[in-house]
């Protein structure tokens, strides 16, 4: 008998907890490892305190089949770590240790993730006290010893207008031997605040999980609540959400290419793209009044309609912007001095990308075909997205070029969506959520795959809400990309990933 529960997933799914068999840990472990050795990857792994011990849930994706595999087991104070055999769960296990005080035995890199107060009382595996808040960055950083080896520490407050994080470089001269990234400074306790919900404040907290991915996280959350409530939203809702998601992608990708150009000192593209990014944000504001899409996506639908006049305005403005964007970007990708800095810098191999479980732009730049839009299309199953953008070199150029090609693809997608906007209601009333169920929702944000999982209690309230932002997987890739690079290339490599601190910290 196959011990796992397999579901086909479109945009969201809901399974009664009773239908999810609880496996012995050894069976859980073997199934997970077998699946990962085959064609699956881990999209989420999290805990939820059960009767005695901690319930563990794993969600694996078999991308090509459009299937999800759900696994469930229960552990006590410790369990044998899966990380040595399956590195992509390394952060999930550290997270479990930090939140619930369970020890993944044999984890090779067992350090705190976000430096927050424990979620359950009792002994901390790092010996930190219950009555004191942990100190961020208080852990043993990996060190390289030796003559002429030096350590560079940066942050949490950085030189630009950016979020806080701490970086430790182990350098030999200019060469970086190892980079360790310690985050948690932006930890606002979102998952804990969502418990007992959905609360009136929940949607706002999700919209602000990562501000640049407002539409993405709000869509993932809404899909989850809709599937737990057993509601199907209209095709028009799906279309408006899809347009907003592509606008979000455009604004961020264009901004990123501008920033990459700026980091190698190619100012024309940096300046043009800085302006164009704002223009794309203004298109989103045209739709809903907010440049970041605040207030647009709500469980059950969207809050603003795209009337024909507005759709026409968007089409016309997008046409002008598309031409200007192409001009600005091609300038940079035509310039040998820029390409010389992009090509071969910050390389991540496809094997490493696969082992670390990368998603989104970073994964597609390494040749991995991972795009939720492809495998889990919206609405009635009719897909309009069939060609994910794939590059194979895994370097700064590849990550830039994925963005460049996705920008052009997004222009086409929005244009088509605007032309054939389905009729229908834009908002449906939501009944109560199904009690004792597990809901899953995936959404391709501009950075990559957003995974939201919710478990409801007997009253249909959210007992556990788990968010996986693409940055959660991908920060490790930045550390890998820096190995053997010059420390002065860090800003360029960092920008080529442009990962979220707050999306990781939650």
């Amino acid at each position, binding site marked *: 008998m196959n011990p796992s529960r397999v579901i086909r997933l479109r945009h969201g799914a809901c399974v009664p907890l009773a239908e999810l068999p609880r496996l012995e840990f050894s069976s859980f472990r073997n199934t997970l490892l077998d699946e990962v050795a085959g064609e699956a990857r881990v999209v989420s792994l999290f805990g939820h305190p059960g009767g005695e011990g901690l319930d563990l849930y794993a969600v694996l994706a078999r991308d090509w089949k459009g299937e999800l595999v759900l696994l469930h087991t229960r552990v006590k104070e410790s369990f044998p770590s899966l990380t040595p055999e399956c590195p992509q769960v390394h952060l999930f296990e550290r997270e479990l240790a930090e939140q619930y005080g369970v020890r993944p035995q044999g984890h090779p890199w067992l350090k705190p993730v976000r430096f927050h107060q424990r979620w359950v009382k009792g002994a901390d595996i790092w010996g930190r006290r219950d009555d004191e808040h942990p100190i961020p960055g208080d852990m043993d950083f990996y060190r390289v010893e030796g003559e002429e080896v030096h350590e560079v520490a940066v942050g949490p407050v950085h030189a630009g207008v950016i979020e806080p994080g701490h970086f430790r470089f182990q350098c030999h001269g200019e060469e970086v031997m190892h980079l360790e990234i310690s985050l948690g400074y932006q930890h*606002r306790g979102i998952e804990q605040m969502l418990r007992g919900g959905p609360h009136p404040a929940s949607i706002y907290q999700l919209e602000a999980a990562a501000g640049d991915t407002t539409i993405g996280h709000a869509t993932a959350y809404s899909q989850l609540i809709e599937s737990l409530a057993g509601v199907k939203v209209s095709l028009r809702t799906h279309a408006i959400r899809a347009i907003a998601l592509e606008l979000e992608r455009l604004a961020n990708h264009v901004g990123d290419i501008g920033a990459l150009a700026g980091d190698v000192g190619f100012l024309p593209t940096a300046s043009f793209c800085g302006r164009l990014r704002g223009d794309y944000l203004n298109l989103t504001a045209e739709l809903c009044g907010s440049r970041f899409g605040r207030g647009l996506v709500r469980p059950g639908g969207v809050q603003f309609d795209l009337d024909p006049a507005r759709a026409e305005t968007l089409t016309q403005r997008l046409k002008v912007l598309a031409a200007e964007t192409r001009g600005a970007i091609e300038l940079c990708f035509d310039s040998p001095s820029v390409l010389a800095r992009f090509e071969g810098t910050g390389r991540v191999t496809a094997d490493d990308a696969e082992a670390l479980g990368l998603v989104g732009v970073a994964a597609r730049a390494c040749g991995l075909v991972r795009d939720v839009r492809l495998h889990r299309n919206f609405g009635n199953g009719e897909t309009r997205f069939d060609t994910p953008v794939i590059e194979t070199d895994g370097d700064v150029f590849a990550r830039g070029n994925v963005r460049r090609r996705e920008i052009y693809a997004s222009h086409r997608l929005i244009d088509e969506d605007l032309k054939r906007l389905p009729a229908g209601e834009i908002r449906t009333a939501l009944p109560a959520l199904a009690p004792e169920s597990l809901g899953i929702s995936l959404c391709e944000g501009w950075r990559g795959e957003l995974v939201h999982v919710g478990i409801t209690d007997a009253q249909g309230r959210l007992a556990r809400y788990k968010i996986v932002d693409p940055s959660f997987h991908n920060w490790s890739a930045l550390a890998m990309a820096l190995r053997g690079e010059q420390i002065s290339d860090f800003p360029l490599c960092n920008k080529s990933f442009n990962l979220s601190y707050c999306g990781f910290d939650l």
Partner: protein
Amino acid sequence: MLNIVRERLRQGHRTGTFPKEAPKLPERFRGLPTIAQNLTPAECAEVAAACPFAALGCSDSQLQIDLGRCLFCADCPAAARGALTFSGDYRLAVRKREDLLLEDKAHRLADKLDKRMRKLFGRSLKLRQVSAGGCNACEADLNVLGTLVFDLGRFGIQFVASPRHADGLIVTGAVTENMKGALLETYAAVPEPKLVIASGACAIAGGPFRDSPEAHNGIGDLLPVDLYIPGCPPHPYTALDGLLRLLGRL
């Protein structure tokens, strides 16, 4: 090279005409609310209780809105009752926390700094930005001020890399427990006299993360604030307007 020049001509001159001309914002933009007093005391209390962030209140059964807590959201329970409408007015920044409490009186916009401070900072203001537990949208829209559309530099205002080079801090985020120490140390590293600007609902009052066990409700209890810029996130023109008012340039 020729291509660069050609593209430069095609992209054109894009710097906005602000502050000479008011910017044109999208029709659905939600700015300064106007309050219509059409609620009974019971309705007023009901509406106030429905705001998840306690931005709405009643004093003598008169509806009040705290722009510091308000996210300018599209689901406002008072707006749904017609007791409040969001205008397109982006000018929101004030000098005092109590000025953010809006009733039906006129909104009191930020006063300029005193003469001595204007002499010091009026023509050149260097700010160190500290991001302390928000969502990065505030930071993103402050960054936008550096683009050629807003061109913050032409007003003599600049974001600098070190607190030692700065005349003040512009803080975003609700101040997480994990950023409190770094924020206070950065403040201490700015030479006197110094300014503190709270940008966004999080920095003013905790925003969507109000009363989180892992965060403070903004910087109000931690630092003396000279300018409050409301919004979630504030529109770049809201921030620019506030900065220019502070310097007496508007």
